[in-house]
C-alpha cells in the first residue's frame, strides 16, 4: 500500500494468530520469524483485513496459514507476480510476500527481479536457509560450493547467489538483511521495510535444524558473533569489534581500527543514490559469513509501479460514464446504417 503509517498499535500479537496448527519442524527458525512478525504487525496500525500475505512453495511459504490476515499460498516462485496483480489493483492493502531461497532465487528468480526493478509496493521477506527443506535437503542457489546433499553427494559445483547483490542489481529501492534469532533487529528492519514506499527486500538468515543446522552459527555464537556481524546504523561510522570498514579501490574493505585514521571510516548512509555503495557492502561477506553486515543497506525513493499504473487509469477513468463510453467506442470510426 502506498501510505502505511506506523500507528499506535490497537491490536496485539495474539490477534494475528490464526486457528491453524503451526507445522514446522521443532527448532525451525521460521517459528522465531513468525513470532516476530505477529508481534510486529500491530505496529502497522491497520485492521487485519487490510493485510495480505502471499507466498510461493517451500517451508517458509506455509507462513500465511498461520496469520489471521488474508493469505494466499500459491505456486513455486510465483508469489511476486501474483502479489503484483493484487498490489496494482488494491492500493488499500498492505501486501507482503513470504519466500525462500529456492522459491525466490531459483524457480522464481525472474519474478523477483522484475518486481524489484518495477518497485511494486510489496514487502518481500526472503527466508534464506541455504538449503531446500520441504523437498528434503537438496542444495539451493545460496548453498556454498562443495555442499554435500542428496543431490550433490560429491559436493555441489554450483556457484551461489548473494541475494542482496542480486536485489541491488535488480534496481531494488530497499534492501536489508536480518537474523531469525535477533527479534529486536528483525522487527526494526520490518518497521523500516513497512515504512518504505515501493518494493522492500528483506533477507532473513534462517536456520534449518534438519538439513542445514548451524549454517549461521558464526553470527549467533557469543564467541564469534561480535567479530562477524556488522550492524549498520544510518549516519554512524561502520565499526564492529575492533574493526572498521574503509574504502578500498572500487569497493570496501574491513581493517583493524588501529590501522585506520578515524576520518577514513565509512559512515553508513542507506539513502546514497548510487547503488554501488550498497553493492560494495553486500560483498563484504561471502558464504563464510565473516564480516556480515545486517540492517538496511539501501533505502531510496523512486516512483512505484503500482501508483504509476493506477494514476494513468484514474486520470483516464475519472468522471467517465462507462456505459456511455462503451456506446461511443462501438460507434467510433467508420460505421454505416442499413435501413
Amino acid at each position, binding site marked *: 500500500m502506498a501510505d502505511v503509517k506506523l500507528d499506535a498499535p490497537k491490536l496485539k500479537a495474539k490477534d494475528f494468530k*490464526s486457528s*491453524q496448527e503451526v507445522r514446522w519442524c521443532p527448532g525451525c527458525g521460521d517459528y522465531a520469524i513468525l513470532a516476530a512478525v505477529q508481534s510486529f504487525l500491530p505496529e502497522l496500525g491497520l*485492521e*487485519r*483485513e*487490510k493485510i*495480505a500475505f*502471499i507466498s510461493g*512453495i517451500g517451508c517458509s511459504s506455509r507462513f*500465511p*496459514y498461520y*496469520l*489471521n*490476515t*488474508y*493469505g*494466499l*499460498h*500459491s*505456486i513455486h516462485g*510465483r508469489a511476486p*507476480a*501474483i*502479489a*503484483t*496483480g*493484487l*498490489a*496494482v*489493483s*488494491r492500493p*488499500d*492493502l498492505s501486501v507482503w510476500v513470504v519466500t525462500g531461497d529456492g522459491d525466490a532465487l531459483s524457480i522464481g528468480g*525472474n*519474478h523477483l527481479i*522484475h518486481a524489484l526493478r518495477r518497485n511494486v509496493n510489496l514487502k518481500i521477506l526472503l527466508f534464506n536457509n541455504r538449503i531446500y527443506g520441504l523437498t528434503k535437503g537438496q542444495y539451493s542457489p545460496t548453498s556454498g560450493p562443495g555442499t554435500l546433499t542428496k543431490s550433490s553427494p560429491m559436493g555441489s559445483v554450483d556457484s551461489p547467489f548473494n541475494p542482496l547483490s542480486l536485489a541491488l542489481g535488480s534496481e531494488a529501492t530497499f534492501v536489508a538483511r536480518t537474523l531469525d534469532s535477533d527479534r529486536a533487529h528483525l522487527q526494526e528492519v520490518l518497521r523500516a521495510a513497512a515504512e518504505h514506499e515501493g518494493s522492500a527486500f528483506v533477507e532473513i538468515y534462517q536456520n534449518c535444524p534438519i538439513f542445514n543446522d548451524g549454517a549461521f552459527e558464526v553470527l549467533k555464537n557469543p564467541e564469534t558473533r561480535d567479530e562477524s556481524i556488522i550492524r549498520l546504523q544510518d549516519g554512524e561510522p561502520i565499526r564492529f569489534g575492533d574493526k572498521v570498514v574503509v574504502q578500498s579501490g572500487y569497493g570496501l574493505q574491513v581493517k583493524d581500527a588501529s590501522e585506520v585514521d578515524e576520518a577514513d571510516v565509512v559512515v553508513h548512509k542507506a539513502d546514497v543514490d548510487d547503488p554501488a555503495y550498497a553493492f560494495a557492502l553486500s560483498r563484504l561477506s561471502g558464504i563464510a559469513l565473516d564480516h556480515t553486515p545486517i540492517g538496511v543497506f539501501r533505502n531510496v525513493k523512486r516512483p512505484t509501479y503500482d501508483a504509476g*499504473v*493506477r494514476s*494513468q*487509469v484514474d*486520470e*483516464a*477513468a475519472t468522471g*467517465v460514464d*462507462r*456505459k*456511455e*463510453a*462503451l*456506446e461511443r*467506442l*462501438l*460507434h467510433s*470510426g*467508420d*460505421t*454505416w*446504417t*442499413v*435501413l
Partner: protein
Amino acid sequence: MNTVRQLDRVVIRFAGDSGDGMQLTGDRFTAETAKLGNDLSTLPNYPAEIRAPAGTLPGVSSFQIHFADTDILTPGDQPEVLIAMNPAALKANLRDLKSGGTIVVNTDEFTKRNLTKVGYDANPLEDGSLEDYQVHAVPLASLTIEALKEFDVSKKDAERSKNMFALGLVSWMYSRPTEATEEFLRGKFKAKPQIAEANIAALKAGWNYGDTTEAFAVRFEIPPARLSAGTYRNITGNQALAWGITAAGVASGLPVFLGAYPITPASDILHELSKHKRFGVTTVQAEDEIAAVGAALGASWGGALGVTTSSGPGIALKSETISLAVSLELPLLVVDVQRAGPSTGLPTKTEQADLVMAMFGRHGEAPIAVLAPQSPSDCYDIMLEAARIALHYRTPVMVLSDGYIANGAEPWRLPGTDELPDIGVEFATEPNGVDKAGEPVFLPYQRDPETLARPWAVPGTPGLQHRIGGIEKADKTGDISYDPENHDFMVRTRAAKIAGVDVPDLEPDDPHAGEATTLVLGWGSTWGPIGAAVRGLREKGVPIARAHLRYLNPMPKNTAEVLARYDRVVVPEMNLGQLTMLLRNNFPGTDVVGYNKVRGLPFTSNELQDALEEVIKNG
C-alpha cells in the same frame, strides 16, 4: 468512356513485399467497402519475419477481401483479382488466382535481378505465361514518383506511397469511395502533413490513372448487401475480443485487469485494451507468460475481473497457474488465440490444435469451461459469455480464438449497450457459518447449492480473513486437508461444478428435417467455410444439416440428442481430429467422420463442399 458492369461479388488479393504496406492497403480497401454496405470477409496473410529480405518469396505479405451484395461467410477460395507489387508477389500468389482473372502488376519491380531472385528465367510479363489472365502492367512506382514530384518529399518517401496509388486505382476499378482514406491518412501522418498530402495525392493519382487511361475499359460496381437493419461497423476478431472484455467489465461493474506478455497473434488484444483505461481497464505487460496469468489471478483474488491473453506456447506456460485458479475457485479469463504449432510452428498462421490442451492440458483433475467464437464479431459476445461463466461459477474459462478469426474482419451489426447482460457478482460480506463453539465464521468453501460456486470474499472485507492456497482444502472450511475422502469429494465437486455450467442448447440448422442423414459439426473459425460449403450443397439439392459448437466444455445438454438424429457426423477441423476424439469419447456409438487439414490456412468452401459431398455419396 468506361463501361460500368454490375457484379454480385468479387475476391481481390493485394500482395507485395512485407515492407510495401499491403496490410494497410487491404485495411483501407476493406473500410471503403464496408462503408459502401457490402458484406465482406477478409484474410490477411503475412510472414512471421517483420522484414524478410526484400523481393523474396518468404517476404511476401498479402491481404484478401471477398465482398458481395449478399451475405457471405468466407474471404473467398480463389481471388479473381491479384494486385502484385513485385515478381515475388506474382509468383507466390499466381497459382491461387482464378483462370481468366485480372492481374495488376507493378512493372517497375520486374527487373532482371528481381526476377532472378525468385527463380523466373524469363519475364512472365513478356513470355506469354500469363496469357490466360487479363494483365494490367502498370509502372506503379514511377507513376507515383512522377505524380509527387511537386511535393516536398524525398524520392524514397514518394516511392513508398505507391501502395496508395495502387489503392486509388483498385478503388476506381471497383467504384469505392476514398474520402475516408484521405481522412485516415491525415490522422495517421498528423505530425508529418507533407507525407499525408503526398499519400493522398498518390491515392488520387491512382484513381485518375484508372479514370483517364484507356487501359481499363471496364469498371465494376457491387451493390450493397441486403443486410438486416441496424448500424454496422467493420471489426477484426482481436478488436472484438478486446471490446468484449471491456464490455464484460462494464456489464459486471468490476475493474478489468489484463496481465499479458506479447505474442503473435494475440498482442493486438493487449494493445487495444491498453487504450481503454477510461473503462477502468488496467493492463500490465508482465515479464513473462507465467507472471501475466499470475498477476491476473492476484487481481481476481482482490475482486477484479482477471484476464490473460496469449497463444498456444504461452498458454502452455500458464498451465500451472490455471490449475491453481481451479483449486482456488476464482474467476479468470484465459484467451488462447491459436496459431499453427507445435512450438513456434507457423506463428502468423491459423490452426485449431489447442482444443485438447484447453480441455486437459493441466496437472491433476482440473476441468475448466471452454468456449470458442465462430467469427470475428462473435468474439465480442463470447467474451461476455466467458465472463458470465467465470464470475457466476468462480472458475477459469478458456476462450479459443485463432489466427484466422483474430486478423480477419467482417461487418458487425452493433449491439445496443442496453442489451448488456447482467453479470454482476455479490461479494461475501458476512460470516456464512458457525465454528464448533457456535461463533460466526467465514467458510470460504461453503458452496452455493445450485451452482456449486464458493463465496468470493475479497481482501479488505472486515471479519472474513481467511487463507487459501494450492494445497487441498477441506470442504466448507477451506483449511488444509490431507483426508483421502475429502480429496475425492473435492475433485468430484469441482468436476460437477463445471459439468453443471449452464450453456444454451445446440441449434442445428436443418431446413429439410428428416431428409438430411449427415450432420456437419464444427467449432471455432470453421463456421464460415462450413456455412459456405453447406449453402453450396443445398443449392445443388443435396440435403445436409449443420450445427456449430460455441461451448466445448461443457457441451450443450442436447448435444447427444442432436447427434443421434443423423446417421453420421462430419467434423472438419484444422487439426488431426481433436473434437472428433472428444465426440467419440462423449457420445459412443456416434459415427464421427473427421475432415482434417493443417496448412496454416482456413478451409476453402470448395474443398469442404467436395469432402462433404463425398461422405454423403458414399453413405
